């Protein structure tokens, strides 16, 4: 499709081009006054062209632009004679501002003398507005970056603080391992001491003075045993006899004891919620833990106030701060009306040897022991406190599936066995083995001693004893493995495990009857009874201890 050729724009004279070009044009004399200006620029500035001629150029610059011209443009023009794209603000006749870009060129005569300058002016209003937005955006970005840097620094500080806490936790863990190890060795030394004292007090014909001496020694040994058991509790290495415990019954029984511990000025309340499940925990250790908490509460209240035991079912879900498997737990909360703790104290409260009490008044082990017990039992201990508002220590314990039996009270008097048993005794520690052997003989049994699992198995090839009493933690073959292999050879053979501590796989479910060392004659007799009772030993399968398929 073709049409008539488009007409050319009308021819322009040089004057028309000068006046109507879409850029401003201005000529300035050497003294800075305007010699000539085109119509485009005059219209932009809202002047008649002749109104500008003769005026100093500074009169069409804003004050800010004048400073910029004198400080930045004039020196360059002076030296180089040319200046491109300078941003300057022009002042219109009505006082308003015209943002412009100005190109400058120096005019010289034939001898190089300055005649003046030629200026080309472009309206840069839109560009300037865009620049302002850009600069504002940059400023916002700068502020955002500064804020980000601040947050980053804060985060780093927090990570640093957390790392410091972690290091502290690791220290405590190491301390725990050390303590556990030392306590265990100490336990092994206590076992023969206690056994010998026990035998001495029963057998030897002692005069009164010597009998008292033995009594004092036995008391000291008992105190040492208690201290060691606390250390083991903190190290979560104690041998726990976890059984179903009826918490309200336990608290009812303990009430007098608690009252004596905290003194007459402390009011005691026990609040029990319905549907409280029985807890699965070592009853004796729990009693000790509760007593420790009571003593702490008493000290926090200055011997005066109210101590409340709350017993309630606790439903723990995902994400609970206790970080336990979801489910229902039995909770025992001990609340005092004492001084409470600030955040810093609270953070360290369950650390071992941390105490706010004066020298000689606390070991700093009470709360850490209670926490160790809770955790080793499969529960948790939580402390809530605010300065001036008292403290609540909550022990969460796993619920027991079985119904608790009333606490058995061993009958005092003759604890000699009703029948003589042949006992195979296995322990790698000669001292401990000798003392346990003496105790077994004391109870009326026949004892065969060996020092290791393999030796015991050798004996068991041809003969079967009535019972095996074995240490657990032996080098080479542990007592648990020995039990499994022995029961494989002689199914149903009773085994009693002795242990200073046992936080070991295969021993945590109470599958084998256990006895914590050191023990008294009575405890040993009771443990033997337990081991011999048919219900007490569901067969330990070889599979469970990693020895292959179980036999029926």
């Amino acid at each position: 499709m073709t049409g008539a050729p488009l007409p050319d724009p009308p021819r322009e004279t040089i004057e028309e081009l000068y006046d109507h070009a879409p850029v401003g044009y201005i000529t300035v004399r050497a003294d800075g006054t305007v010699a000539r200006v085109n119509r485009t620029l005059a219209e932009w500035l809202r002047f008649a062209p002749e109104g500008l001629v003769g005026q100093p150029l500074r009169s069409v610059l804003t004050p800010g632009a004048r400073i910029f011209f004198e400080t930045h443009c004039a020196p360059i023009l002076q030296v180089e004679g040319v200046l491109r794209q300078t941003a300057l603000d022009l002042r219109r006749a009505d006082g308003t501002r015209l943002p412009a870009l100005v190109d400058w060129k120096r005019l010289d005569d034939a001898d190089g003398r300055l005649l003046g300058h030629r200026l080309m002016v472009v309206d840069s209003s839109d560009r300037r507005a865009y620049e302002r937005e850009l600069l504002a955006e940059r400023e916002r970005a700068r502020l955002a970056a500064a804020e980000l840097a601040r947050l980053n620094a804060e985060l780093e500080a927090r990570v640093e603080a957390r790392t410091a806490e972690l290091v502290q936790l690791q220290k405590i863990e190491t301390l725990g391992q050390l303590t556990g190890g030392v306590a265990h060795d100490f336990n092994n030394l206590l076992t023969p001491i206690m056994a010998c004292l026990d035998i001495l007090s029963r057998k030897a014909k002692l005069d009164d003075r010597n009998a008292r001496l033995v009594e004092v020694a036995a008391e000291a040994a008992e105190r040492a045993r208690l201290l060691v058991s606390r250390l083991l509790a903190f190290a979560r290495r104690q041998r726990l006899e976890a059984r179903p415990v009826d918490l309200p019954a336990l608290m009812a029984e303990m009430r007098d004891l608690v009252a004596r511990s905290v003194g007459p000025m402390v009011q005691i309340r026990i609040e029990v919620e319905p549907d409280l499940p029985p807890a699965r925990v070592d009853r004796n250790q729990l009693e000790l833990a509760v007593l420790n908490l009571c003593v702490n509460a008493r000290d926090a209240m200055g011997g005066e106030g109210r101590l409340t035991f709350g017993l309630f079912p606790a439903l723990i879900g995902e994400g609970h701060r206790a970080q336990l498997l979801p489910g229902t737990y039995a909770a025992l909360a001990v609340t005092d009306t004492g001084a409470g703790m600030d955040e810093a104290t609270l953070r360290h409260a369950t650390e071992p040897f941390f105490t706010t009490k004066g020298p000689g008044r606390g070991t700093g082990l009470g709360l850490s022991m209670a926490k160790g017990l809770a955790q080793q039992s499969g529960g948790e201990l939580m402390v809530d406190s605010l300065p001036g508002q008292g403290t609540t220590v909550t022990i969460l314990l796993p619920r027991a599936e079985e119904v608790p039996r009333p606490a058995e009270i061993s009958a005092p008097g003759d604890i000699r066995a009703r029948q003589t048993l042949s006992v195979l005794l296995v322990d790698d520690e000669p001292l401990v083995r000798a003392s346990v052997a003496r105790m077994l003989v004391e109870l009326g049994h026949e004892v065969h001693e060996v020092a290791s699992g393999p030796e015991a198995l050798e004996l068991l090839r041809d003969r079967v004893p009535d019972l095996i009493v074995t240490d657990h933690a032996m080098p080479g073959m542990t007592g648990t493995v020995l039990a499994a292999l022995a029961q494989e050879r002689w199914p149903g053979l009773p085994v009693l495990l002795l242990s200073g501590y046992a936080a070991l796989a295969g021993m945590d479910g109470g599958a084998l009857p256990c006895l914590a060392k050191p023990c008294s004659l009575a405890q040993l007799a009771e443990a033997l009874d337990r081991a011999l009772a048919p219900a007490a030993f569901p067969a330990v399968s070889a599979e469970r201890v990693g020895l292959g398929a179980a036999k029926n």
Partner: protein
Amino acid sequence: MGVLRRNNVKVSGDGTRPIVFAHGFGCDYNAWNAMAPGFERDHRVVLFDHVGAGGSDLSAYDSGKYSIFDGYVNDALEVMTALDLRDVVFVGHSAAATIGMLAAGMAPGLFAAVVMVSPSPCFIDDGDYRGGFSREDIEGLIEVLDSNFLGWSRATAPAIMGTPDRPELGERLTGSFCRTDPDIAREFARVVFLSDHRADVPRCRTRSLVLQTQADMIAPVEVGHYLHLHLPDSELVVMEATGHCPHMSAPEETTRAIRSFLAR
């Protein structure tokens, strides 16, 4: 970082009498290229850049220190003591004239004379005092500065500036124009044009020369008279030259005026 490196100090000349040239806002020591060599035969000529300008160490720039003139005054005194200068003739243009006046008031023992080229102790009108500008005018300057420096920031220009094989670039004024960091230029502009040092004028007892040009767009002629009136020991010379930078536009006349002042 030494003072001499920080302020890009350049020393030349065969004479013993020290003459220090200090540039004003928007320039660097190259502004003295047309004048300084004329003093080398009988003076020890010292040129330096203010921190933030020219070849100075930009990393030494500290918004706190340089938010007032004192930061620059301190630097000038440090340069003089680093070179162990005594009986100094301090020639300062515009902002640096104020720097010289303040430095001489602070340490008069170091100075023989202060030459103030196109000076102003206060650019803002205040009552009867006519500095020539209002605070809004200075905000307008900042906007123009921003607009001109956009795209000339140090981040985009170092390729040109850091070329040792083309030293002439660094010697040219456009070089120093480009080498001005926009943020520093903005802060320096506020220091120069919003400060009021009128109260310090009578404290400068050093012999002073005030050089005032015709039709300075920045410093009105009244300011020259004001300074002459309030400086205890001063001479005022109103030059034939025009504009704010007579040391560049009329170096011979400026040199003559300084030499005849020093000869008196």
